[in-house]
């Protein structure tokens, strides 16, 4: 098991290198290339000052060097083991403990690590709420449809799930925002952000203060998350519900299910204790692919609902041509995806004792 794990982790390294290399080449090959220009906002500055500022940034980010060197420099900074630099920027040694330095964001002028530390939890929160929801709905709908094979519910859910799956996220987001967060129709939900200003002064849990109900920080957060989560989840559960249906259907008519029924087990017991357990396997495989698609989805959802997560950051970074930020977002989302695959493989062993990795 341990060797397997080690092998998987080691295999991640070339993949991550490849990802960053692809994105880095895109940036370098683009017509504007990477330059400090984006850092130095033009107007109101004396030419000499502007030059000085450019020179400062060039020196600091190594932007005046040829592209391959830039990439290697960046790589050295990011990898936890590598060469160390002295104050002048010369390489003077090799260290195994120098730690990762993600560099400074051009746009924000702050360490990328800090920015990511702010943004990643928000996106992960969105996903942490969304993924269980996706599975819950998908399993309920899928199993029900399988039981009702060919029946009215089956046909209806089949078509409606496929339709849901085809609805573009932006259309859904816009309609939800337009109808359920606006005073013109139903003002049930907030329009933007993930918590209201008032929530900062509230206690965390719901309370009755002086006979007045205070929703508390937690409920306020939940209330803010409703629309974005709907937007993020519907495509996922639509796809997954269909998968659940086929998977359950296959097992429902398998020999062991028939045996169990013959043994006199009640139908719910057959379904949930035997069939369902076996139908879980494909669902777990799919869970690995869910995370990247959710990350992509949050690009749009966060944009529509003004949520400051990774998705927003990605769009901002790309539009601002922020080299360090773009590279870091790339490898981190890649890393998350790979970890997703790894976790899925492990869940596989948990769900199916027959599978083992050695």
């Amino acid at each position, binding site marked *: 098991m341990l060797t397997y794990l080690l092998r998987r982790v080691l295999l991640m390294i070339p993949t991550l290198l490849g990802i960053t290399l692809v994105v880095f080449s895109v940036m370098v090959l683009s017509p504007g290339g990477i330059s400090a220009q984006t850092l130095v906002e033009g107007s*109101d500055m004396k030419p000499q000052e502007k030059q*000085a500022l450019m020179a400062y940034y060039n020196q600091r980010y190594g932007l005046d060097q040829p592209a391959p060197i830039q990439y290697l420099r960046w790589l050295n900074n990011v990898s936890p083991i590598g060469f160390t630099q002295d104050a002048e920027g010369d390489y003077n040694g090799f260290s195994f403990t120098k730690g990762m330095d993600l560099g400074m964001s051009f746009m924000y002028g702050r360490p990328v690590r800090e920015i990511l530390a702010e943004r990643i939890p928000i996106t992960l929160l969105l996903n942490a709420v969304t993924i269980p929801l996706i599975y819950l709905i998908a399993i309920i709908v899928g199993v029900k449809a399988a039981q009702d094979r060919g029946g009215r519910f089956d046909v209806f859910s089949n078509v409606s799930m496929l339709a849901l799956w085809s609805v573009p996220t932006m259309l859904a987001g816009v309609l939800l925002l337009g109808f359920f967060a606006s*005073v013109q129709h139903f003002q049930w939900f907030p329009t933007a952000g993930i918590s209201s*200003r008032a929530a900062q*002064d509230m206690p965390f849990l719901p309370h009755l203060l002086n006979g007045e109900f205070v929703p508390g920080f937690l409920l306020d957060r939940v209330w803010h998350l409703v629309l974005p989560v709907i937007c993020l989840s519907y495509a996922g559960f639509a796809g997954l519900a269909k998968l659940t249906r086929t998977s359950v259907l296959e097992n429902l008519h398998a020999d062991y299910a028939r045996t169990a029924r013959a043994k006199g087990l009640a139908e719910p017991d057959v379904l949930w204790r035997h069939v369902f357990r076996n139908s879980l396997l494909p669902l777990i495989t799919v869970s690995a692919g869910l995370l990247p698609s959710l990350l992509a989805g949050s690009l749009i959802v966060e*944009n529509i609902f003004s949520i400051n997560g990774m998705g927003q950051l990605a769009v901002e970074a790309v539009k*601002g041509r922020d080299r360090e930020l773009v590279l870091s977002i790339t490898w981190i989302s890649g890393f998350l995806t790979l970890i997703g695959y790894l976790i899925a493989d492990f869940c596989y062993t948990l769900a199916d004792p027959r599978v083992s990795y050695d």
Partner: protein
Amino acid sequence: MQKRLTTKDWILYALIAVLITLLLLVMYQIDRQWLRLTEMQTALQAQAKDMRDLRSAVSSGTLARTDNAATATTPAVAAAFNRAHAMTQQAGYAQGDWSVNAFGNNLKTLTPLVSSDAYASDVQSYVLESLITRNPDTLAWEGLIAKSWQVSADGLTITFQMRDDVTFSDGKPLTADDVAFTFDFIMTEAIQAPRDRAYLEKIASVKANGKYEVVFTYKEPYFEALSLAGGMSIFPQHFYEPYLKTPQAFNESKGLLLGSGPFQMPDPKGWTPDKGNVELVRNERYWGDVQPSYNRILWKIIQNDSARLTTYRNGEIDAYGARPKEYADLKQDPQMMDKSQHFEYMPPVAGYSYIGWNQERGGKPTRFADKRVRQAMSHLTDVQRVIKDVFLDYAEPAVSPFSNTSKQHDPALQPYAFNLEKAQALLKEVGYEDRNKDGVLEDAAGQPFEFKLTYFDANEDTKRMVLLLKDLYAKAGVKMIPFPQEWPVMLESLNKKDFDAITLGWTSGIETDIYQMFHSSQAKTDGDNTISYKNPELDKLIDQARATVDEATRMPLWQQAERIMYDDQPYTFLMRRKTLAFIDKRIHNLQMTKLGLNRGLLPLENYVPAAQQKYQQ
């Protein structure tokens, strides 16, 4: 036999999970309560310190004396606070409530000098104060922190006498040393303030003369000397001085903001961009003669346009700046009109938009280097049409960089009118003809008249305008290719002078200095004359006007410069746009002034009557 999970196990696990979550949540809540407690504790400490100071002041007798003086001269309101004072006398006036606004973008930093966006300076304007301020009615300068000032006969020295009762929001007094420090601080090379330094470089020195008098000395006469010196925001020396030793920490800081203004950051060092919102609280120690009405000023970050409007409709922000089309539509919307006051006005400082024709690319003159081509393009650019179709008449044509109401402007000049025949004649004169009958003009060498117009892609109105211009130019056989760009990319092409034509805008002031965009010295290097426009005659006039302190002799010089630019058309000047705003009805005492709407003007002139207040605290 393998162990299987039974239903009972599941329930057990679920119960344990719920219990643990509950426990965690409760722990988190207690944690938050502790945070609140510490916050209150610091507030209490600050109050206690004030009490101590007060007590010592009383015992030493200083307080009693000032008190007597105040009662002796009853109108204790300085001229700058007159308008605000008048507000407090209104029938419904009440203190309290918050002002809630929205920013369309994340802020990078709030630290003055380092920040470069308009949003940050908006926040800073509530916190930092300067020596003098413009009167919104007369546009004359009035003392804010300065009581009075004298300009020497040669215009080279300005002496300010300052009020002696001004304190920063942390209770420390504001003295002439702070003013002198501010100048020295900005001029320190290690501090990343090139923009501010570029402005202040005309000042030779700033010296404190005693505790409450400060002297600005100029290197050469400069027409904006007074506003430059008096408009400089004053930084507290005790707060910013340590950063002279660690300039890097200052340059990379996010929220170092402390001043003497009516509002203060809850924590003058603690703000970071991840907080999203920016929040200012009332400066309880504000020295001014009129205390601000709001308890807090809050800016939310809402990037999505339609979400911003919805948020306004829902009453969660107080103002919404609309695009022309929106404005016209929303005025018909009963829900919107029911809750809002609406304003359309042309601020005197409204910037103008233009199309800049690049005259030199890669060291070679472009087709736009010929004055006749530029004139033809100006004749083809039907500004009236653009204003009518795209901006729905909420704009006025610009003749030159100088606003139509400004004294710099020569009223005899009229904007270039749309004239297809004249444009065609001019182009023919240069040698453009449709030689291969494909609808596009070609020059003598057979090169088609085709160019890319670079514009900022996020502005919808600009996009509509560009498409309209494309159709207009097509009528004369000129092919324009719209070329939308992201902001940083656009700045880059500007800096590298790598574009055919570009449409952008410049802000203007009450009096507009055109040195940086049109002086030829700014074309050689990385200056803002990105179109490489050179006219020695104009250069001379600009230099002359800038060195003339006397307004009566300066204005004719500007007008002469304007006439040259009118003939040369280095830019095709497009228009000045009106500000179109919806403001929540609970905000009272909104008035038009010569500086525009008085919302956000300092000293604050708006309030919310007690009955309509929304936010306690």
